[in-house]
């Protein structure tokens, strides 16, 4: 019987084909138990084969945790069933794609997945519900059209992202496309990037002031620059390092104001070598580059990088790509033309206003195909490939807002294009507006998801789209981003209004909640991060959003940005605004709060059952944790007022109080002395691992321990900002710990 391997022989790059064969060999070794499950897990992750929710063979069906008895008695990683469906991530460097590649992606979605192509917040594609046995052929079929899944997951260099407008943008310094591709090619499988303690995400931007490639929130960011040397213009990049969202955000630091283009790859390699040598390996929670940069300080890090660079032997690949920069130059199929005066189809004007970008090249437009939640069907993907062929020189790109763009559309063809997109169900307006909500997979498919980010995004999108015509323009321009947990895959920190999932206990039941994060800045390459201002029940989020946006529309000064308005309002007023939405009715009064959006299952149901309901008894934990939350909020207010030392102290006290809240459940004799609280907490909750999150393990406890150890030592304001965030996460972890203790079976993935 012919196989895809036979069929595609000679059509794949030889080294990629070899790599896939090697992976298939490792699958065989795992089947015969000749390699350890942990080793195999990292192996498959480095090929893009990721775990998916319930792959541990258990699922809460709304009544209780039920076993999922997959047929094979084999694992593909610790606690990961071989037969359980997985997610496959597909790298798309700079988001660049042609119609042939899109068609292959559609074929794979139909043959190996659930018929949906999902665009991620890093310009990748993801296929869900993929069986591990199908992955080698999936990879081969992609390789045959020049796409790889290698190092799409795992402790490796992830997709190299870039602005989807690169090359057609009005404000870019130059087109970063060929540079981003060169970096992708150079680092893929490179020896110096195989021993990282954690993942490494690079991004390219052409402009400083737009959102562009969001370089300031990446491990390594490249901002296009030009300088004049001896009368000649020289291209290069300002390089940022150590940025990141995740649980605790870090703003990137400038490694160099200008690295000439011929040094781009070598300096990156030097950064990777320093990261490999000095980056944390054992504690994955401290292993991202941002921690190394923060620990060493940017000056020391910079010194080490350039020393490393000096010692490296010249590699011709560092500059070879510069001879081939035109490889990615695009030219239109059709002549430019202005939009005619012909009758516009219904809906065209609204779509034109939000989804069409007039390119630098007069008469051409880049059109955003607004994908709800980043999803498109197989049928739509085939149709979009046809549309791209008809209206563009085969130039499609994915975006970090989970959309796709069609570049080089003659403006004279926009009405025809609109109708073609309409026929494919791809003409939704509102790209880049409040309707165009970004969300990570959350509890739909992610193993770490706490709340239903996609369910919430879908609900908000539906409601906002219905009132889009009546929304104030300032509100329309806001960005909403949602993550299912604190890990920030939905990029909630850089939204005007962000949400991340968590949970709270109400009597003996858990209630899905979202933390509200306000004031992040999308523009200026993720210019600043928002701060959490309070948790509200998941079912209250639509009302919260409506309340915030209505007040912003009513109270903003002329031209006042959302960030400025939030700052002017102050955290206390913001907190007060949320207050009415924080109440959770009792289960008997309203069960809807106890399930999440789009999921009728009760959020969790503990073993205690209704019969043992604590009724009106309020536990010591509940009373004390509220005090901790109040203190954490005071820390936020102090931070906002620039009282850094006070914020530091308050954040510390908030963590101590939250720790005490837990300890009080075991002993009333803890007192207020910090060392006592820390010692009691350590022995009762850390050493026993009761506080351990199923995935993050003891990470959140370390926030308290580190601050306690530092007692009195002054730190800079950035470190205090981080501590305030850590205090909030510690409190969330305390809530989760309390919930786990109350209903252990129902809360395997609280944090």
């Amino acid at each position, binding site marked *: 019987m012919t196989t895809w391997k036979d069929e595609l022989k000679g059509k794949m790059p030889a080294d990629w084909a070899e790599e896939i064969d090697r992976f298939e060999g490792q699958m065989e070794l795992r089947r015969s138990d000749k390699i350890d499950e942990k080793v195999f897990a990292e192996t498959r992750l480095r090929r893009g084969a990721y775990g998916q929710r319930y792959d541990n063979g258990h699922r809460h069906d709304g009544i209780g945790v039920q076993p999922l008895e997959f047929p094979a008695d084999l694992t593909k990683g610790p606690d990961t069933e071989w037969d*359980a469906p997985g997610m496959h991530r597909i790298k798309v460097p700079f988001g660049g794609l042609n119609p042939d590649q899109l068609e292959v992606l559609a074929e794979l979605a139909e043959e190996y997945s*659930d*018929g949906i192509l999902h665009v991620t917040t890093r310009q990748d594609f993801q296929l869900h519900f993929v069986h591990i046995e199908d992955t080698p052929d999936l990879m081969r079929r992609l390789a045959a059209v020049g796409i790889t899944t290698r190092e799409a997951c795992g402790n490796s260099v992830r997709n190299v992202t870039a602005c989807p407008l690169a090359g057609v943008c009005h404000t870019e310094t130059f087109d970063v496309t060929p540079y981003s591709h060169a970096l992708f090619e150079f680092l893929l499988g490179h020896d110096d990037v195989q021993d990282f303690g954690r993942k490494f995400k690079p991004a390219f931007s052409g402009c400083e002031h737009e959102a562009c490639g969001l370089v300031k929130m990446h491990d390594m960011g490249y901002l296009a620059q030009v300088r004049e040397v001896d009368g000649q213009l020289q291209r290069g990049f300002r390089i940022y390092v150590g940025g990141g969202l995740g649980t605790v955000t870090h703003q990137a630091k400038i490694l160099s104001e200008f690295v000439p283009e011929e040094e781009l790859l070598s300096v990156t390699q030097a950064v990777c070598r320093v990261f490999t040598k000095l980056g944390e390996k054992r504690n994955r929670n401290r292993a991202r580059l941002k921690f190394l940069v923060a620990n060493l300080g940017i000056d020391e890090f910079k010194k080490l990088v350039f020393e490393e660079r000096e010692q490296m032997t010249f590699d011709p690949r560092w500059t070879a790509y510069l001879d081939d920069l035109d490889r990615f130059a695009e030219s239109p199929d059709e002549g430019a033309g202005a939009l005619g005066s012909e009758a516009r189809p219904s809906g065209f004007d609204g779509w034109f206003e939000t989804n069409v970008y007039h390119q630098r090249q007069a008469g051409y437009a880049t059109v955003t195909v607004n994908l709800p939640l980043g999803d498109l069907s197989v049928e739509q993907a085939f149709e979009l490939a046809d549309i791209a062929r008809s209206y563009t020189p085969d130039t499609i790109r994915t975006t970090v807002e989970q959309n796709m763009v069609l570049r080089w559309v003659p403006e004279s063809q926009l009405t025809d294009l609109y109708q073609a997109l309409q026929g494919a169900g791809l003409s939704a307006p509102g790209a880049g507006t409040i309707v165009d909500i970004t969300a990570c997979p959350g509890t739909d498919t992610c193993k770490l998801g706490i709340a239903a980010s996609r369910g919430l995004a879908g609900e908000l999108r539906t409601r906002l789209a219905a009132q889009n015509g009546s929304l104030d323009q300032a509100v329309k321009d806001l960005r909403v981003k949602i993550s299912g947990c604190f890990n920030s895959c939905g990029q909630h920190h850089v939204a005007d209004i962000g949400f991340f999932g968590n949970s709270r206990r109400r009597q003996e039941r858990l209630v899905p909640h979202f933390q509200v994060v306000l004031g992040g800045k999308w523009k200026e390459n993720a210019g600043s991060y928002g701060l959490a201002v309070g948790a509200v029940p998941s079912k209250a989020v639509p009302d919260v959003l409506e309340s915030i946006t209505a007040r912003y529309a009513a109270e903003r000064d002329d031209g006042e940005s959302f960030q400025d308005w939030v700052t002017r309002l102050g955290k206390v007023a913001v907190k007060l605004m949320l207050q009415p939405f924080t109440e959770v009715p009792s289960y008997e009064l309203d069960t809807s709060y106890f399930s999440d959006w789009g999921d009728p299952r009760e959020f969790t149901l503990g073993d205690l059952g209704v019969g043992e309901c604590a009724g009106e008894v309020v536990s010591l934990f509940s009373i004390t944790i509220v005090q901790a939350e109040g203190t954490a909020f005071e820390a936020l207010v102090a931070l906002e007022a620039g009282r850094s030392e006070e914020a530091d102290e308050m954040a510390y006290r908030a963590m101590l109080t939250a720790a005490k809240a837990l300890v009080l459940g075991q002993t009333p004799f803890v007192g207020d002395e910090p060392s006592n609280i820390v010692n009691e907490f350590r022995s009762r909750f850390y050493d026993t691992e009761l506080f351990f999150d199923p995935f993050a393990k003891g990470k959140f406890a370390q926030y308290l321990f580190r601050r306690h150890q530092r007692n009195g030592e002054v730190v800079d304001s950035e470190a205090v900002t981080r501590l305030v965030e850590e205090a909030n996460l510690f409190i969330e972890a305390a809530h989760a710990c309390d919930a786990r203790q109350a209903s252990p079976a129902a809360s395997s993935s609280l944090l």
Partner: protein
Amino acid sequence: MDLLPARIKVKLFFTDPVEPNDFVPLFHSWIQEKRFEDHLLVDVADYRHVPQGPSIILVAHEADFIVDIEDGRAGLAYLRKRGWPAGDPSDDPLRVRIRTALSGAVQAAAALESAPVPGIEGGELALWLIDRLSLRGRPERDPVLLQTIRQELSAFFATDDLTVEPLDRDSRRSFGVHARLPSNSLLVPSKSLPA
């Protein structure tokens, strides 16, 4: 026939418009009830926001049960993915697979009988063989393949009174047929909408 498609999808059509939202709690309840003994039901995927796609999917290890609106007509599709029975050695393996997929679709439709959703259209279905490797090089209206499908449909529904036409679709898409059957030979009688 030495053709063994990795996936086969059978779609039955609803008699009336459906509200995909109704299927979310229904599919979750099927998981709770372990509704199909021979399927390991895993989860419900919600794609109501995607036009022309699988709207709601009950994902099982062996197959997906889909509220399918892909071609503009709402239907209940059964997509068999793995766990194919070996069948009798004397049987044509392709026909065994088609039969398995038909059985799954019928089983799913029967499970809908008591649910507050529209009934299934009596006299028609669509069937796709989803495997580009196995099907490469075959003519678009392969008479041998059509004949095999027809034979199995005829045997399965115990009728010779049926028409099987290849779906006139984009050549990039999977090979599919549309079949018409006498309404009285239907496995799942059409039922009226609940009041």
